[in-house]
């Protein structure tokens, strides 16, 4: 009798059987829509939903409607793992978009490879596609690219002593490593190297250490989400005067909102979409970026963020591949993704290849911005 309860419990778990009709093409999405990376995941989710509807309104893909199955992980790698399993085994998706963060991406790569289903990640760490893995792609500028751009700027400004304060989540950790590797090539010396946790809400101790380090000329904060916003606030509270650099992990108005007045004067690298209207007309992706920016802002009522742009690119890279493959076989879709050529994404021009599962052209894909008056300005 007692065991009856057990049976019932298990039975309940089975209760939610899915009756797949098989007449839609299912694409999975793993986003960090809530939690410490919500200003990455929330615009991503909104973008995916909006454009899925748009594609369906125009007739779908290969005559079938697109079905988006999205899960929110709160930037928790363990949840990413669980939801990926769910997408692969229960929902039966042909491709997965996401996750939003590098840590989550690294966690699910083995599973995607084993299942032979393509993944287009919206995260930044270069380790995702280097070394190249057959089924793993990404459409966001890498942390290494960000480091190189920033180091170049430091060199141009003759600032040689750099202090690092990095988030310990996947992207922060990875970018820190990349920057330390890349710095000597530009003549930059790392004089301080602090870290903070993903959910930390106070970085004063670490910043105090930096403040008390001799001769720091600039500070760089690899990270994403709420961490850098708090670092920025603490930075101002402690009255640090050196220039503060951020990565594209903060390329969203939300960052400025949370950091408040402290964000004034911060310099960062960013995908071009956030300043789409300020780009030169000759910029190769100005049209796509501007169209996306306007549509996103109109449909959601909020300011465009680069992260939503990642989602747009991922969705279209995949749907273009499905169209080109003329089939729903994940293996064929993967082949077509790899053949992406001159795709005018919101993030930049994309041309992939067997050795390059990112294919992003750095020149068109990255801009240097300053925050002035609560808004972005392009640094010439």
């Amino acid at each position, binding site marked *: 009798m007692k065991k009856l309860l057990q049976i019932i419990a298990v039975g309940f778990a089975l209760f939610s059987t899915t009756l797949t009709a098989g007449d839609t093409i299912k694409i999975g999405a793993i986003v960090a829509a809530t939690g*410490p990376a*919500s200003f990455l995941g929330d615009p991503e989710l909104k973008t995916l939903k909006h454009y899925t509807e748009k594609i369906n309104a125009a007739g779908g893909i290969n005559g079938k409607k697109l079905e988006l199955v999205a899960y929110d992980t709160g930037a928790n790698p363990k949840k990413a793992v669980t939801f990926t399993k769910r997408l692969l085994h229960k929902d039966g998706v042909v491709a997965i978009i996401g996750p939003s963060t590098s840590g989550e991406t690294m966690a699910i790569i083995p599973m995607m490879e084993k299942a032979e289903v393509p993944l287009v990640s919206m995260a930044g760490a270069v380790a995702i596609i280097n070394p190249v893995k057959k089924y793993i792609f990404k459409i966001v500028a890498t942390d290494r690219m960000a480091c190189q751009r920033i180091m170049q700027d430091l060199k141009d400004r003759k600032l040689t002593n750099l202090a690092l304060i990095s988030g310990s989540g996947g992207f922060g950790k990875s970018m820190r490593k990349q920057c330390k590797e890349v710095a000597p090539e530009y003549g930059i010396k790392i004089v301080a190297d*602090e*870290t903070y946790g993903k959910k930390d809400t*106070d970085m*004063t*101790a670490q910043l*105090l250490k930096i403040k008390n380090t001799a001769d720091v000329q600039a500070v760089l904060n690899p990270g994403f989400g*709420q961490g850098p916003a708090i670092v920025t606030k603490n930075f101002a509270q*402690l009255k640090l005067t050196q220039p503060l650099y951020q990565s594209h992990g903060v390329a969203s108005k939300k960052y400025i909102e949370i950091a408040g007045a402290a964000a004034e004067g911060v310099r960062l690298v960013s995908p071009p979409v956030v300043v789409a209207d300020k780009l030169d007309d000759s910029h190769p992706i100005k049209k796509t970026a501007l169209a996306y920016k306007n549509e996103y802002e109109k449909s959601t009522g909020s300011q465009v963020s680069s992260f939503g742009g990642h989602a747009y690119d991922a969705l279209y890279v995949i749907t273009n591949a499905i169209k080109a493959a003329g089939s729903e076989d994940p293996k064929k879709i993967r082949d077509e993704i790899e053949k992406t050529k001159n795709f005018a994404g919101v993030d930049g021009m994309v041309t992939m290849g067997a050795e390059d599962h990112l294919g992003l052209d750095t020149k068109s894909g990255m801009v240097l911005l300053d925050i002035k008056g609560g808004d972005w300005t392009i640094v010439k």
Partner: protein
Amino acid sequence: MTELFAFLLSGITVGFVYALVGMGFTVIYNSSGIINFAQGEFVMAGGMSMVFILAAGVPLVPAFALAILLTALLGILLWKLTDLSKDSSQVSLIILTLGFAIFLRGLAEVVFDKELHTIPSFVGDGSLELYGAILSYQSLLIIAVSILIVIVLWLFFKKTTLGKAMIAASDNVEAAKLMGINIKRILMLNFAISASIAAIGGVLLTPITSTNYEVGIMLGLKGFAAAIIGGLSNPFGAVLGGLILGIMEVLVAGYLSSEYKDAVAFVIMLAILFFRPGGIFSNLKAQRV
């Protein structure tokens, strides 16, 4: 030297918040023998409520009062639940308060959201400069209010009839009942006081460290460690415990390793539990305050 001083100031500020949380623990424990695992969530409730009430346009002082009141009510709710429980063994009560903590977190997720929120400092963005170290006005406020609360509580327990009745009740329930003291009412009041103290701490801290639905977990655990360090039988021990904790944390983060900052509270707590479970004050004051 200025670096050390800066660390100390930072440590004292956060130490007072731990102290407030810890005091709440000991007040409840002293009157009911219950370890309230939801104490940290009361801090969160105070901070989060304040954020949303302010956002609704309510002016500062009424918003503050309202946030504290709401949290006090949650405290009373918890008391009621412990009262209803059929099994009052220690394990059951611990789990009940743990469940309530999870409940509050879930409630915050639903009623508010999962995002990080902040509010502007209550006393402006200025700061004092002392020996090269910076102390923001908000931090000063935290220190001042905490000291005030400690004094008020001390006076309450020592000088007022109600306060003395509470002490009596925690010392000897039967005798207190014989004297006509309404035990239930006292317990309820204790929970309300604990929750309020925690909420005040939460509200004051939010301009400095921001808040979200999860802040209660670590704060609660550390406040708890502060209480143990000071000694569960003495609410004012928690103040010392909190300060020691706050300072040690910042010193470890500053001079040793910032990653292990959070571990400091628990290492010290374990040391106390193993070598002097009654807390620092255990041999100094035999009776509870």
